[in-house]
């Protein structure tokens, strides 16, 4: 039966009711005196500007580093279990693993040659 949950529903209704009542009451009885400081964003971040510094471009150097990190991170995710079970897996897995590492290094070579590792 749903009887045990009825109090929860009451609690929900009570909560919503209280919130609505408070907002409504303050709307009706509260004084409304605005000034410049009151209309500013308060503890909600900084004032937005139309354009970020440098024409809105965000440097993506760190993003490249982060992406490279993830590439090698994933590589080690596969390398660890492989290293643990190396004896059981045999030659087939070794060849597969070498091919996998080569594939990752193709991406690495591309980033290196195209200047992805130069910070400036």
């Amino acid at each position, binding site marked *: 039966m749903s009887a045990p949950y009825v109090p929860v529903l009451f609690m929900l209704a009570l909560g919503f009711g209280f919130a609505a009542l408070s907002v409504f009451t303050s709307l009706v009885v509260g004084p409304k005196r605005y000034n410049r400081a009151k209309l500013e964003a308060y503890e909600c971040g900084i004032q937005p500007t139309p354009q970020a510094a440098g*024409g*809105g*471009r965000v440097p*993506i150097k760190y993003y490249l580093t982060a992406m490279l990190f993830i590439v090698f991170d994933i590589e080690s995710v596969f390398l660890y279990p492989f290293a643990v*079970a190396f004896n*059981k*897996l*045999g030659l*087939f897995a070794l060849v597969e693993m070498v091919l996998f590492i080569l*594939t990752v290094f*193709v*991406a690495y*070579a*591309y980033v*290196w*040659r*195209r200047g992805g590792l130069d910070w400036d």
Partner: protein
Amino acid sequence: MTAVAPAAFQQANIDYLAVLPLLIVFGAALVGVLVEAFVPRERRHTIQLTISVASLVLAFVAILFATKHQGLTFGYTDGATSRRLFALAIDGPALFMQGALVLMGVLGILIMAERFGGVGSDAFTASGASTPGSPIEAASARAGLITSEVFPLTLFAIGGMMLFPTVNDLIGMFIALEVLSLPLYILSGLARRRRLLSQEASLKYFLLGAFSSAFFLFGTALLYGYAGSVYFGDLSKAVSDTSLGLNGLLVAGAFLVFVGLLFKVGAVPFHAWTPDVYQGAPTPVTGFMAACTKAAAFGAILRLAYVGLDTASWQWQNAVIIVAVLTMIVGAVLSVTQTDMKRLLAYSSIAHAGFVLVGVLAFDQRGVSSVLFYVVAYGFSIIAAFGLVTLVRQDGGEATHLSQWAGLGKSHPVIAGTMAFLMLAFAGIPLTSGFVAKFAVFAAAIGTGGATGTVLVVIGAVCSAITVFVYARVIVLMFFSEPADDTVEVLVPSVGTTFAIAIGTLITFALGVVPSSLLDLADRASQFVR
């Protein structure tokens, strides 16, 4: 069902000849990345083009050999439960789709490589990371930078597409979906002209695509919860085993997975990205996407519908019927109001996706073969059509507004005539492949679809009639109205583009006049391996 740890490592059986086409394409893409890294800039374009086309031709030859190696591969049969846990299914539909994708990929790449006398591909920007209109952009164009990365990216996309109809489990299907999608997101944003539109298209495609991938993955999780396995064979068996009784998981999972796949074919209500992306993406990429992505996604839908969820078809087929009806109607009706050539072709491709879905819903072998035939017929036509769109120019940029095509029949009868012929093929007029393809899917739907199939075909016929009006209007505009201004010019394409457009048009004609050989091939290739 409880998960039991395997007692010992069991090595996967891999038939290397069966997966050789995939290995060739992915290997060539890796070589392409190395070329980007180590070869001097001015020689990259030629080398990349050679590698791409050569590897695709090689892959086609390998596909012919792979037909002798059909069956499940990349996995093992579990000794204790005798479950067949194979990741890839090399069978008729998979190999047919792979062959079609490779050939359409060659044409797509030839059009992408068009330079019109410039340094790099004419359609692609010199530096994709620069702000449109910025000094960096101008400087990189002056320095002769080119984006020849488009070739390895396209090869990766083609590899993913070849994998898509071949995979035999949901996780593999998700990986293939991502491998084909990620390069396409990048390619969409690399247009040389109207770059803001292109970048907007790329971002929209990426966000909506990521969303649909999430749907697919969530559906996969639910289906795994239902069947305790991601393999299509296990899924099908779990559905027929009625004692399970977790239909909530099954229905929700099947719907979500279908949402992910129907997004890729641009079926209504998951079509919203199609017109924007087709318009914004570089036109050769649009042609490639319209032909190959659609073919690959329909291959995947076929495998999911006929192998994985076949026994549960009563759970999801009504929803897909509604999607098919909506797709045909929305695609046809909205194409009437389009004034941009690329958007018009985009809405037309939505309508075509609806027609193919009618074939999918036939649920028998003829349904499979008609879908296979349809995507090939449509693919070659649409690649040629978008190839022609790249040639019509005003002030250097593509003249895609319909008014700019007015009177083209008088000034450039060959271009306008070819476009008119392709338009007739999209409309489904006899003596074009479009007629045979539509006839095949509609016949399959009437043959086995019963009353629902007949209703679908009636709606399809009405929508075809609506689209005939759209295409006829373009033809009338080209041949029977005066040119709005005479600054519209038609560029003379290189050998590669000419070849691609000519082959696309010839195949459209040949499949309309003598369709029997491909119909037979599609028929023989319509058996799924389980």
